[in-house]
């Protein structure tokens, strides 16, 4: 069985439980084993502005913990992903930095050699499990659902470091969204930032950017925006709600986590998906689910039903 050390980071357990529970449910269904490492700490992302070394040490300690158990690390957060990948790249290319980091980690009996892989949930779904296998597990598909797919900056860029997908014309997430039967729409601001990094630092600017992006999605015909990162989702959900009330606006573009979307079409337990935990209601999406899967005729899904 495929197995990963699950790196939850700080935001998900504290503020986005539905992302954790829905991810666990989806991955269990798709046969991915998860190992929880209690000693994991913050990836260092929030401190990159302040102290490079703190960021690097924080990331490296997590990677060393994964390496100690010989497990590849999977993140659910794009910022965690970007930070861990950045730390990996820096340590691999700079011998003196590696030495310095390891001399600190040594105090705890840890060492980072760069032997393990760092993956985001979406790349695990796309590359390790595969679109066809996911389709084979579908219980239902969405009909007439338009999704504005949001990639998230720290997964896409800098592409040399993260290697997530083609940074100019990515398609990984679109394919995953379309596997559920939904349509992943084209929208001009698809690859723009969600605005979260400035939330709490410069709220006005953050609001401008978030709103611009969401309005663009709406104008392009989206019913929902879909993210696979706690920062992006909270920005599109809780913060959007705050923005709308502050600027006296109605009609939000609700945000759904990818694991909620996928979980629905996999027919998973509603409780694990936590739909009602989103600040802006998304339960209406269930009406668009239809039992006949468009892939129903395909032989592999028939096999799957037999085996289960």
């Amino acid at each position, binding site marked *: 069985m495929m197995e990963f050390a699950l790196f939850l*980071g*700080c*935001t998900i*357990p*504290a*503020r986005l439980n539905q992302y954790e529970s829905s991810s666990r449910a989806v991955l269990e269904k798709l046969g991915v084993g998860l190992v929880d490492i*209690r000693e994991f*700490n*913050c990836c*260092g*992302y*929030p*401190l*990159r*502005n*302040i*102290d*490079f*070394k*703190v960021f690097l*040490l*924080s990331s490296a*300690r997590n990677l060393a913990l994964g390496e100690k158990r010989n497990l590849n690390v999977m993140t659910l957060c794009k*910022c965690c992903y970007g930070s861990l990948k950045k730390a990996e790249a*820096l340590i691999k*290319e*700079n011998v003196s*930095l590696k030495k310095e980091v390891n001399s*600190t980690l040594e105090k*705890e009996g840890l060492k980072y050699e760069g032997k393990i892989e760092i993956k985001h949930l979406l790349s695990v779904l796309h590359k390790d499990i595969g679109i066809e296998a996911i389709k084979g597990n579908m219980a239902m598909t969405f009909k007439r659902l338009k999704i504005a797919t949001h990639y998230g*900056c*720290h997964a*896409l*860029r*800098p*592409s040399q470091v993260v290697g997530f997908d083609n*940074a100019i014309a990515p398609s990984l997430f679109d394919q995953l969204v379309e596997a559920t039967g939904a349509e992943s729409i084209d929208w001009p601001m698809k690859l*723009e*930032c969600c*605005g*979260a*990094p*400035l*939330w*709490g*630092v*410069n*709220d006005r*600017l*953050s609001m*401008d*950017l978030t709103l*611009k992006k969401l309005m663009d999605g709406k104008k392009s015909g989206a019913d929902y925006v879909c993210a696979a990162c706690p*920062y992006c989702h*909270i920005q599109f959900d*809780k*913060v959007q709600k*705050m923005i709308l009330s502050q600027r006296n606006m109605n009609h939000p573009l609700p945000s759904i986590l990818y694991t909620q979307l996928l979980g629905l079409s996999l027919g998973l337990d509603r409780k694990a998906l936590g739909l009602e935990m989103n600040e802006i209601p998304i339960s209406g999406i269930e009406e668009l689910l239809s039992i006949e899967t468009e892939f129903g005729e395909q032989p592999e899904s028939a096999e799957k039903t037999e085996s289960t």
Partner: protein
Amino acid sequence: MFLKVSLTISLVIFIFALIYKVFTWFRYKIGIGSEEILTSTRFFSAIKGILLTIFSVKILTLLKVFVLDVLLQFRILKEDFLRWIMHIFIYGGFMLLLLMHALDKYITVAIWKEYYSTVNPFIFLRNLFGALVIIGVIIAIYRRFILKVPRLFSNAMDIYAILIVAVIIFSGFFLEASKMVAYSDYKRMVDEYSGLSDPEELKSLEAYWVREFGTVSPNLKAPFDEKILAKGKELHESSCAGCHVRPQWAFTGYVAAKIIRPIGLGIDRVRLPSMLWYLHILACFVGLAYLPFSKMFHIFASSISLLANGVIGKEKLSPANKATLQAMELDACTHCGTCSLRCSVIMAFEEIKNINIFPSEKIASIQALASGRKLSPQELRLIQEGVYLCSNCYRCTVVCPVGINLQDLWFNLRETLLQKGYPEFLVLSPLSFYRGLMREETVLKNYEKPLIQAREAIAAQCDLMKKKDKVLPLTPTDRKLQRGLNLSAQAKTFSVCFGCQTCTTVCPVVGNYEDPQEALGLLPHQIMHAAGLGLRDLAFGSNMLWDCLTCYQCQEQCPQGVHVTDVLYELKNLAVKQVRGRTLQSMERK
């Protein structure tokens, strides 16, 4: 007499101290929302809250929390088995000793009419309970000083706590042991209880006790005649055994007695038993009188914290009760270090040597602050940095064995400190995301102030930004700036910038403004250029630096391979380091 007087004194001190400590729970002010509330308001609102809870279904939750968390301490068990054994042994053994042994006249006698401290099961149980405490204390010492549990700090109070328990228990055991070997104590019991007067009989009994129970006699020495021993056994069974079991039942004391037997006569001559009695009693009374001021006060405060937080859950407390709860929680902290062990940002301490980064150590600083002690600007700034350097992951709150809502404590205090006017540069990082999310839930006075303050403090150090005509020298003004950009090799790439402005063109922040230069100062390509020219002030003082989303659009698109975002990151690091240093200096001068 001595017993009565010293007990009364220690009890009086204990009670007054207890009242004082509880009073501080209503008086100490921690963080936002607590400043304007009167002590009396807090007191009555607490009483009301308690009554409303007791006379509701929540009483069931309280009972559950009391059994599982307060008595059985499941929260410690969940965290670490060895620690649970340690604590349950110390606390369980000690409480049972208190009830059965120390308060025997009041409790044990009331339950068992035929109670004697020298018969079973009491003599055995007393030793068993004591042995549990000793095992617990040994584990505690092992954990702190040999195993060296990571990030478990030992302060004077922790050492005192282990010491006072150890002194009470060991003095008790050696008191028992010394009485076992001391001839005077044997003689007293014979005189008082045996009713024997025939010298032959007395001699036989004494021989039996010396042989069997380790009494050290100045008159008799082994080997003894079998007949005498047989007679002694008979006398023991008829005169003593009725209310004195074989001392071997006091197994811990008996082991100690074996050790000290060779000096048994000397022990009796200096009346060690009575010295140890005084030590045992005094240690107990000192422990009692000092309890409210020591870590041992957690016996009360931690139980209350567990019960209170057990019923509060996620519901909102009134500001008055919240203030009281938070003041009480400071006393509930046992300095066990679980929060620091699990803290998400502990790696920060490797570079930023501020002890307040560790949650367990923040508590001590907050206690000082709450008690109204005058703290220097430097100390305040360190606490402020410590409470802000937090990813708000709630782990400390989740793992706290006594259920303290630590996250809430940090948040509350953070706001108060930020309003005091010392610039905190950490607010210019994504650590502020949580503060932004909280801006509606908690009424944050002057939400913008700390953000403006930090930016202004940086701008104040950048003289060139203030120049009106903006005529700048073309020669590098600060060569150190370029040398400073060396945290990673990537930052050096600014030197290949040829000024094509692609970075600025694709920047979503720049694109957000009609007049970007007015709002942001230097734009990304200009900052790359400023780094090349060594124009420190212009790079640091530009809003662009702090308004960067780190979305990496600029870096991705740069035709020259300049790591624009990474250079911006490093400039921010440098700016914080330099400005923090200078603000500190100017604070010290004040």
